[in-house]
């Protein structure tokens, strides 16, 4: 209705956590600044395209003006996004592009994969690279794209590099640590692991610490949770690739506003990523208000 605040629905993939928690904070902040009515939705089970589509549908039923979906599966979303379009709802995708969207914002999954490959090559140096990847689950769509990009970029940067296996850890550090430990036993020349799941990095770092492999086994983490930064400080992790989750949430609402108000905007908005090394940790933590422990 005329005069009522705009209703904005963020259909995210999880509630809280180091990554999406920051996103939510940024989203709420922007909604507050603009006087919008912000709703943050997340499914009960991780990575269920069906639940995400259902949530998007619920947002439409609740007369949303703006929806910010994470299009984990273009086909699955096609129907519901078309419906939203017909209802005149502004659609800004988060993290993944899609034809039905007015625009999207996020770390481009391909770019993220590339950034991780670059970080790995920089960390290992000139020696041989035998690397494993670890993601939440092999069924997580966006992580698949990220991982494929990583593999492709690595092959381009270092044709001699070997990707041993793609592991999954269910966001559980214990599983991650056990798996990488067993993999190392089977492949003693394995010398690196990159993570697409925050707890994968944590588990790998704990493996490095236990086996005393600092400097020999390289771990590339993801995102900037306090315990990840601590691992980098302790040298059990080489570096982490941080996505700009707060920015993503904050800017997405402003992007939607521009579209809604008929102002000029770009379709693709890469919120970028930063690679954080040991030397950068303190400054990064201070800048982003992260408190580090002992």
């Amino acid at each position, binding site marked *: 209705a005329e005069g009522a605040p705009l209703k904005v629905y963020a259909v995210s993939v999880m509630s809280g956590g180091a990554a999406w928690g920051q996103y939510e904070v940024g989203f709420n902040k922007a909604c507050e600044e603009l006087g919008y009515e912000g709703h943050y*939705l997340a499914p009960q*089970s991780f990575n269920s395209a069906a639940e995400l589509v259902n949530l998007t549908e619920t947002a439409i039923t609740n007369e949303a003006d703006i929806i910010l979906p994470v299009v984990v*599966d*273009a086909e*699955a979303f*096609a129907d519901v996004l078309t419906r939203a379009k017909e209802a005149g709802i502004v659609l800004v995708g988060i993290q993944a592009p899609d034809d039905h969207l007015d625009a999207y914002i996020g770390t481009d999954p391909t770019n993220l994969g590339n950034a991780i490959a670059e970080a790995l090559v920089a960390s290992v140096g000139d020696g041989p690279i035998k690397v494993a990847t670890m993601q939440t689950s092999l*069924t997580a769509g966006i992580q698949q794209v990220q991982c494929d990009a990583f593999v492709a970029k690595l092959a381009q940067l270092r044709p001699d590099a070997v990707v041993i296996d793609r592991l999954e850890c269910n966001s559980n550090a214990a599983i991650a640590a056990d798996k990488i430990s067993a993999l190392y036993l089977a492949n003693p020349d394995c010398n690196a692991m990159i993570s697409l799941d925050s707890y994968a990095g944590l588990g790998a770092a704990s493996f490095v610490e236990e086996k005393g492999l600092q400097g020999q086994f390289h771990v590339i983490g993801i995102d900037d949770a306090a315990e990840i930064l601590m691992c980098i400080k302790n040298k059990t992790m080489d570096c982490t690739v941080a996505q700009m989750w707060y920015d993503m949430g904050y800017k997405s609402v402003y992007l939607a506003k521009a579209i809604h108000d008929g102002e000029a905007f770009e379709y693709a908005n890469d919120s970028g990523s930063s690679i954080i090394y040991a030397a950068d940790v303190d400054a990064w933590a201070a800048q982003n208000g992260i408190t580090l422990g002992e």
Partner: protein
Amino acid sequence: MKTRDFARNLLARNELGTIMPMALLLIVVGFVNPSFFAANNILDILRTASFAFIIAVPITFLMAGGGMDLSIGAATSLGGVICAFALKAGMPVAVAILLALLGGAMVGVFNGLIIVKFALPAFIATLGVQYAINGIIAITTKNLAISGFSSAFKVLGQGKLFGAVAYPVLYALVIGIAGHIMLTRTKYGRSVLAIGGNAETAYLSGINVRGKQISIYIATSVFAALSGVLQAARFASAQPAAGSGTELTIMASVIIGGTSMFGGTGTVLGSALGCVLLATITNALIVMNVSTFWQNLIFGVILIAAIFIDKYRRRASGGE
């Protein structure tokens, strides 16, 4: 006097156990946000419940007959994936669906054999099958969703009667009614209840216990595969993890609906209400603007409250 008796009788019926907690929930939601009752929203809830209910019908038979199956989630995913592969290979829709159901049937035959014939404990046997099926899906699909279906297929999941009632709701209705009649009115259904109540007595009374048990395991997997096919049609994409995790919620719906985990009692109507209740809670939490952080807590509390109220009602109405 008469109406009071009628109300008491209604309350005393097992299958209606969840009606009271549901009514309470609806009153609260309606109060907080009346738009919950928008026809659209109700139909959305029913559609969500339908995908679960299609599996809950055979699961009602299975649990009433004393069985259990943790592989239904995986069978759901498998159904969607097989159908998708067949469609991509250019087969006609009907053939693709048939193949998917056949795949489901094979899972069911396997479950039935190892549990009924070789007497392995159902809990681990079907857990093992769950892993195995997920493994097969991973190997064949590389865990990538399969999409790009013809609209002739998609309409099966996306179409709506009179532009309002989604087809899956209709399928669920038909399957539910058939299941209800089968369980309450047929010799087959009676035999299943007898097997769940006391398999030895049933056997000595001339009932083909093993055959019936195996047939239920097969039906369970076939309907799970069907649900997977419909989900693939609805989302125009077969997700390798489409059904993962649903085994617990579907079993929970069936138990909420009054079916005993230990066999002998069960009603399809109750399972329908159980499925609708769970879908309603999820939807209501969003409609009431409950923060995602609070949703799990409130979901859990409502779940416990629902069975608690049910129990109390039963006692009050003189049953048990």
